[in-house]
């Protein structure tokens, strides 16, 4: 107990230290040193996280209180960490995947000069630090600090190449969209504190404060928290920033999409499972929004031509699945999917980075093809990632997706049907990506063809490790049909997520469902194979064009939100400001001016008139005394 309290604060402290060292010493450190420090601090955190994980394995939770953070009147919000099954699992994901991404970055970013290289690593460390704070926080306020921190770091990293105006715009977009969500989260925290007087998880989820909340309160709070989650975890309506976030360096995309940022919303809802389970309305909203996002993003991914954009939309789609699971009350299934998704999505992004590296900066898959012979390691690991995300049997994605599908089947058949459709789409677009990139004939320029080479070991080793994890990661939560060894993750998480709904169906039914999902995905994959085996670029028409343009959602937002706001701002600028505000301001000046001109006349220099005024005033004061005030 005491040990955990002493060790826990070191986990976020080391990345913070790394941030300070690499950030302040960016002009002095060599690239090698920067890489060692930047990755080393994360590695230390990883080791500490493993140790902490061992401590909470038996299902015990630790509340580590450090100091009073906000104390005013009856409100007391300490700076505290909560270390339990849920947060320790997330710690492992963040530090583990984060460390691999750091190692990969040391090679990937090698073309930057040393001061920018160090700047990159300091941002990356700060990112990990914020995320660690987010998952370790023992109350909503500490969580919110980390929440804002990852928002800031995503902005810094997406806009890392700040000389390109489009990248800066993408960074702004990410930041602003997240602010919209953050507002919801913040209001939820205020609401909670005003009703229960506390923000600590242990106290909020205790019977005493749950009694203080009416049904309406719980529904509103959970909905507002979900608004926060839609921002960070890129759900409708706040998802458009995530595909644009591809402007940053590829490892950053991997970090945002796999280990940090986008899992924050899922983590928050899983952490607040007690509140969500008490608000069925919100659960439905969460499930349907998740479903809509999953399908929308999957359809968009069918026709994207940028290797990173396809992966970005697949992330949005997979996050939709996690939200479906959360809406069904299957919190551990969602967390399980977060974990497996972290493995294979980090793998896919880093693989894509390796491809881009080999193609000397080319990202358009229409100009790729036939790379499988040239960059074998990348191809093989990418294939593993693709199989995992498509839900190929015994790969990690298969188990986690199945857990979610099972939960939907036991709960809501309509959602189940659509989720299956989404799974088919996933298989289809991922294999389209794989085939266009690695199979067929090379469609790029001669120069690129000549340049093709496998990435250095610092990039391929993380790929291989992640490939192993993507394959084997699913075995920690086998479905119920496997008897004794099944659902170990759910049992492990039970202490932190007590209200996890598990739907039991008969074993034969479960086999049938798995078979059905696998069969459908295979059909989709085969379809993709025959369609894209021999690819030639064609102009998209009709629906294809709509999908290529992402359902025109950006244009829609532009026309219903951005343009009216600009018009309004123009109106205020040109009309309101110059006519009304200026009139008031200048009018005040003019009034004073005029008044003083009139008052000047009183100052005549005639002593007599002064005395007369004095006498009149005295008389008035006497009159006031005797006749009015009585």
């Amino acid at each position, binding site marked *: 107990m005491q040990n955990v309290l002493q060790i826990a604060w070191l986990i976020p402290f080391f990345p913070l230290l790394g941030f300070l060292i690499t950030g302040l010493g960016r002009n002095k450190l060599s690239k090698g040193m920067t890489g060692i420090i930047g990755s080393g601090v994360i590695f230390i955190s990883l080791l500490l996280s493993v140790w902490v994980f061992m401590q909470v394995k038996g299902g015990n939770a630790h509340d580590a209180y450090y100091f009073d953070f906000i104390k005013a009147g009856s409100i007391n919000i300490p700076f505290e960490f909560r270390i339990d099954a849920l947060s320790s699992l997330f710690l492992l994901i963040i530090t583990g995947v984060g460390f691999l991404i750091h190692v990969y970055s040391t090679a990937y970013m090698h073309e930057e000069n040393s001061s920018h290289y160090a700047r990159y690593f300091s941002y990356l460390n700060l990112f990990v630090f914020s995320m660690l704070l987010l998952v370790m926080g023992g109350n909503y306020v500490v969580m919110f600090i980390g929440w804002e921190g990852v928002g800031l770091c995503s902005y810094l990293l997406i806009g890392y190449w700040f000389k390109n105006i489009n990248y800066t715009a993408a960074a702004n977009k990410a930041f602003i969209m997240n602010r919209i969500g953050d507002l919801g989260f913040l209001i939820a925290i205020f609401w909670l504190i005003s009703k229960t007087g506390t923000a600590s998880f242990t106290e909020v989820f205790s019977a005493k404060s749950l009694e203080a909340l009416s049904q309406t309160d719980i529904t509103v709070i959970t909905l507002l928290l979900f608004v926060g989650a839609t921002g960070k975890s890129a759900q409708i309506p706040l998802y458009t920033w995530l595909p644009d976030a591809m402007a940053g360096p590829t490892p950053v995309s991997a970090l945002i999409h796999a280990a940090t940022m986008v899992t924050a919303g899922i983590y928050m809802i899983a952490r607040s499972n007690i509140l969500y389970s008490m608000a069925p309305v919100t659960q439905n909203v969460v499930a349907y929004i998740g479903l809509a996002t999953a399908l929308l993003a999957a359809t968009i991914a069918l026709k994207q031509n940028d290797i990173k954009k396809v992966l970005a939309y697949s992330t949005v789609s997979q996050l939709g699945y996690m939200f479906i699971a959360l809406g069904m009350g299957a919190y551990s299934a969602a967390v399980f999917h977060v974990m497996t998704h972290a493995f294979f999505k980090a793998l896919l992004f880093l693989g894509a980075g390796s491809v881009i590296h080999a193609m000397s900066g080319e990202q358009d898959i229409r100009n790729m093809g036939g790379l499988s012979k040239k960059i074998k390691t990348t191809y093989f690991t990418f294939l593993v990632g693709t199989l995992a995300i498509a839900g190929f049997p015994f790969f990690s994605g298969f188990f986690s997706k199945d857990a979610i599908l099972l939960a939907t089947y036991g709960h809501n058949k309509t959602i189940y049907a659509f989720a299956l459709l989404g799974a088919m789409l996933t298989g289809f677009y991922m294999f389209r990506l794989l085939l266009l990139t690695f199979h067929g004939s090379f469609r790029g320029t001669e120069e690129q063809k000549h340049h093709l080479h496998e990435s250095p070991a610092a990039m391929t080793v993380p790929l291989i490790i992640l490939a192993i994890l993507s394959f084997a990661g699913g075995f920690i939560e086998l479905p119920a049909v496997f008897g004794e060894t099944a659902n170990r993750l759910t049992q492990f998480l039970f202490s932190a997520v007590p209200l996890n709904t598990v739907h039991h169906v008969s074993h034969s039914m479960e086999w049938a469902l798995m078979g059905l999902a696998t069969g459908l995905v295979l059909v989709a994959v085969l379809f993709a194979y025959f369609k894209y085996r021999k690819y030639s670029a064609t102009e998209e028409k009709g629906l294809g064009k709509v999908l290529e343009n992402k359902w025109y959602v950006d244009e829609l937002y532009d026309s219903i939100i951005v343009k009216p706001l600009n018009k309004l701002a123009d109106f205020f600028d040109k009309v309101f400001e110059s006519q009304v505000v200026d009139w008031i301001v200048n009018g005040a000046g003019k009034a004073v001016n005029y008044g003083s001109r009139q008052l000047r006349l009183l100052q005549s*220099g*005639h*002593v*007599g008139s002064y*005395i*007369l005024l004095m*006498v009149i005033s005295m008389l008035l004061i006497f009159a006031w005394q005797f006749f009015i005030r009585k």
Partner: protein
Amino acid sequence: MPINYYIFLSLALFVIGIVGVLIRRNAIIIFMCIELMLNAVNLLLVAFSKMHNAVSGAVDATAGTEGQIFVFFIMVVAAAEVSVGLAIIVMMYRNVHSVDIGFLNRLKH
């Protein structure tokens, strides 16, 4: 004698003084009116202090003299003020051969 008589007399003197200051233009007359006002107040002070003493009924050597001490102060200050004021008037008369207070105002125009 009731206190009212004193009050009315003092009031009359004071009002005469004020009106004199406001409507006359001869500096010497204005000074006299100021003196009139001061003396109206002096009269009130003495009258009130005697009345106050008669009500409270304390009997000793200094009973009822507080107001009169004030009166002496006021007289001293008034005398000092008048000496300064008269000096100014004399200077003014030497320059413009007039004691009309409106006279010097014409310099403004």
